[in-house]
Each structure stands twice: as C-alpha cells, then as structure tokens.
C-alpha cells in the first residue's frame, strides 16, 4: 500500500424508493485526513441526492426543473454541507479544510431522469446498447496531471458540474470512477473501452460473476499504482427479465422496454439498512453486488482498491 496510508477513495451506493444513488470520492494524497474528507463527501452526497429526489415530487418528470434545481440549490447544498461537516469533524483542532480535500462524483437514477455531477478529476461514462461510451460531463480546465478541483476550495460549488438527462431507455451502463482508473491506461480511448467491456461481461455472465475487486487490483498494480474507486449502475434491456447473477442478458433478443416504474420488491437487507436517507451510514464500504429486484435499474456494485506498491 503506497506510503502505508489508508485507501483514500470512497464509494457507496444505495437504493431508496424507486431511485438509486451512487457517489465516488477521491481524497487528495496531500491532505492529512483525505480518507475522512472522502467519506464525508460520499455521505453528504448520498443524503443530499436522496432528499433531492424526494423533494422534487411531481417535478421529477420536468427535466428543465430538475436541471434548475440541480444547479441551485442541490450543488450549493452538497458543497456547503460537506464543509460544515468537515468543520464539525475537525472540532477544536482547527484543521484547515484542505486537510480533508476530496473530489466527488455522484449519480442519481430515477424512473424519470439520470442526474450526474462531478467536482474534480475522475470519469463518468455512459454506455448505451450500441456499446459506444459517452463522456457525460465536460472537462474541468483546473484538472491537470495530479492537480484537481476540490471540495475544499473556495467557491467549490461552482466547480461541481451537473448534468441531467432523461432516464436511459434500453440496456445501459453508467460508470463512475476515480482518476486512478483512467490513469492506468495510456490513452483516453483505451480507458473508455472499459464501458463496453463491462457491458459485454454483464451480458455474457451476469453481474454477479463480475470480479470487480480482482479487475481493479490487477489494473492498479500494472497501471498507475493509485487507489481506484468504481461504481456501476446497470439498466437491463428488459426489467421483467429474471434477476439472476449467472444469466446472460442478451440485448439483441430483448424488447426495447421502458424501464419498469412499478414499486420494487427490495431484498431484506436493503430494507433494513438503506431505506431512509437518515441511515446512510449503514451502506457498505466493501465490495457489494446487490440486486434491486424489478427496479428501475440495478446497482451492479461498487469497489475500491488500495494502491499496492511492490
């Protein structure tokens, strides 16, 4: 593990009602409490996104309204709440915010829309059925090499780039990852190929067969040697299909269905620990592959890998 430090990437996903939220954060290596900053970033983001989805109510179907509310107040709230929580956590030690610096990438998937946001480096890819990976957010000019925009900077809320689009129709995969993943590839094109490759693996073997941890550990060992955080959200071609980890999902033979917007039957463990925005602390940090049965989309999994220095 590089420098003997804890993994400074943080990843969480949770499902609330008919929505899925995911957040990925990368604490800066130069920040003393980067792991804490990243953890708080993810907690704040999940709580804020869940509340955002609840508060939208009927406006959720109005994409213009969603975009407006994402610009303000959502992104303001996420950044200011993170700063408030960092200050509360720091208590009397008067640590500057920069001791907790972190990036943040978020996604909120509802039956009506997909909202993504990014502050700092990392990647957000959307892969539709045709397999072409689309970069959802414009590049941040402040990101260069190992330098990045950060939650800890003044007016960081204006660096949180948001984008809302209609909920994907048909088979789709959303990839959120910290910069340790893309820096392990020699070119952008080589990295973006992970999108269609993950989609193909899911089609062929099902999500439960994905060895995400193995992939990431091998990638960072052979690549950049940095921590990697990854979250995947998968929309199957037909939500009426059997949810089975080993089944092959063939998009070629599947009808182009609208996502199922009926209420979902949630696995028991999710009812207990992720059903409310007030109890997000309980979401797992560990690698998880969980199903949301008959839901809008499936949380494929999240994983983080510590950088290993041989």
């Amino acid at each position, binding site marked *: 593990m590089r420098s003997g430090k804890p993994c400074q990437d943080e990843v969480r996903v949770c499902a609330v009602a008919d929505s899925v939220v995911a957040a990925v954060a990368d604490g800066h290596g130069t920040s003393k409490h980067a792991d804490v900053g990243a953890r708080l970033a993810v907690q704040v983001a999940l709580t804020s996104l869940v509340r955002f989805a609840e508060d939208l109510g009927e406006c959720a179907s109005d994409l213009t309204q969603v975009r407006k509310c994402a610009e303000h107040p959502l992104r303001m709230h996420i950044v200011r709440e993170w700063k408030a929580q960092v200050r509360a956590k720091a208590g009397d030690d008067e640590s500057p915010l920069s001791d907790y610096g972190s990036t943040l990438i978020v996604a909120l998937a509802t039956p009506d829309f997909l909202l993504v946001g990014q502050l700092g480096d990392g990647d957000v890819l959307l892969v539709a059925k045709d397999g072409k990976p689309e970069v959802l957010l414009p590049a941040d000019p402040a990101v260069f090499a190992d330098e990045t925009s950060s939650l800890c900077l003044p007016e960081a809320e204006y660096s949180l780039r948001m984008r809302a689009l209609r909920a994907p129709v048909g088979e789709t995969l959303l990839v959120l990852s910290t910069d340790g993943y893309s820096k392990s590839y020699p070119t952008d094109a080589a990295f973006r190929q992970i999108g269609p490759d993950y989609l193909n693996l899911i089609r062929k073997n099902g999500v439960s067969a994905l060895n995400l941890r193995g992939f990431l550990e091998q990638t960072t060992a052979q690549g*950049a040697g940095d921590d990697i955080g990854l979250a995947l959200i998968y929309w199957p071609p037909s939500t009426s299909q059997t949810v089975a980890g080993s089944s092959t999902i063939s998009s070629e033979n599947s009808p182009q269905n609208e996502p199922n917007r009926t209420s979902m039957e949630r696995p028991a463990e999710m009812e207990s620990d992720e059903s409310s925005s007030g109890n997000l602390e309980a979401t797992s940090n560990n690698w998880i592959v969980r199903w949301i049965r008959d839901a809008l989309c499936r949380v494929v999994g999240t994983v983080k890998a510590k950088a290993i220095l041989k």
Partner: protein
Amino acid sequence: MEQEESMEHKLPGGPIANRPLHFIFIADCSSSMAGRKIQALNQAIREAIPHMREVAHGNPNAEVLVRAIKFSSGAQWHVSQPTAVDEFEWTDLSANGMTSMGRALSLVTDDALKTPPMPERALPPVLVLISDGQPTDNFNEGLEALMAEPWGKKAVRLAIAIGDADNNVLQRFIGHAEIQPLQADNAEDLVNYIRWASTAVLQAASAPASQTSAAPAGVNVPLPPPPAPDLADANDVW
C-alpha cells in the same frame, strides 16, 4: 469461442500502462566547462545511471524515460529519444562555445513538455539544469516559454551550480524559494548532487500525491533534503 474465453480473463479496457516519467538533463557545455568540469559531469551522470535503474525497478508504476540536452552556442538534444532507463547509455559531452541557456529551455519546452506529446496522465517531469556560468542568450524568453506550458510549471525543476554559476538565474529556473540551486564546488559534490537528483528526487516524482489546483506552484512533489556539500574536499575546488 477462443475469443470469448480470452475476454473472460482480459481486464476491461484497452492495454494497461504505467505512467511515463520523463527525466531530462540540461547540461551546460560552454567553453568554461572544458577540462575537469565536463569530465566530472560525464563521470557523475555515468555513475548515476545504475542507481536510477534501481529506483526505476522499485517503482513499477512509473516508466522512467531519460533524455539529455546540451547547450553552448545554441542548444540541441544530446539524447533526443525518451529512453527507458534500462537502455540509457551516456555518451560523453565535450565543451566549447557560449552559454545558450535560454535556447535550451525553449528546446525542452517545444520538444518535450507540450501536451501532446507529453500526455496529461504523465508523472511530473524532472528537469535537471547543470551550469557553471551566465546565459549569453535571451534567458527570459526561454524561461517564459517553459513556464507558459502546464508541464513546465508542474515539472520538478532542479539546478546544480558548478563553481561560479549565476545562482540568480538558476533560482529563477527553479521558481520556488524553498528550493535552492545546489552548489557543487568539486567533483565529489557534483557526483552526489546528480545522484540525489537521479535517485531520491526520481523516487519522489514516481509517486506524487494528488492535490488541489490551488496549491502553490513548484511544490507538487515534496523533495527529500539534498546531500550536504563534501567538506572533506573543500580545498579541491574547480
């Protein structure tokens, strides 16, 4: 069928690669370097190479690529291709002419530090400027060109002064008050400083920590302390 099976074992994405780390010597070959100084410089770099290789082997996530520029009356690449440290061999420099330091900075900027060819995913390059004199050309123009490039600003810029070099110019090249030019008053100092730059600094640059874009320029790679001057050889000056 074979293709399907191989897909299961293949990592998602294209081929994986470690991050390139460009290490560039920028060596003064003006007339004043002739004799012991240029011999010592050649010897110091030659001795440093095996140590650089050791450091590179210990950092598999960095691909160390070495090049060298020489400047006298004009500037040119002495080793033009980024060369894997395992394959890097040193051909002796000779000294003759003026001190076109500004031109050397323009050359390294134009040929090595633009994006492309240097990708954004690269590790911060290490530039080691070695000189014993004062620039005889437009140093400011070269420095401005260097600092106008993001990789120029992000580079770890070190300077070794051989004898009575213009420390003010070298300090401006470094661009950070906390890092001083290293004063090599004898051959032993020069060996030690070049080895330090080629090993300890190389090691630090191989694993930089991420930081905010508001961090002060020049401190992106915290540097280990340089070796102390060799006082035993204090009388053995150039």
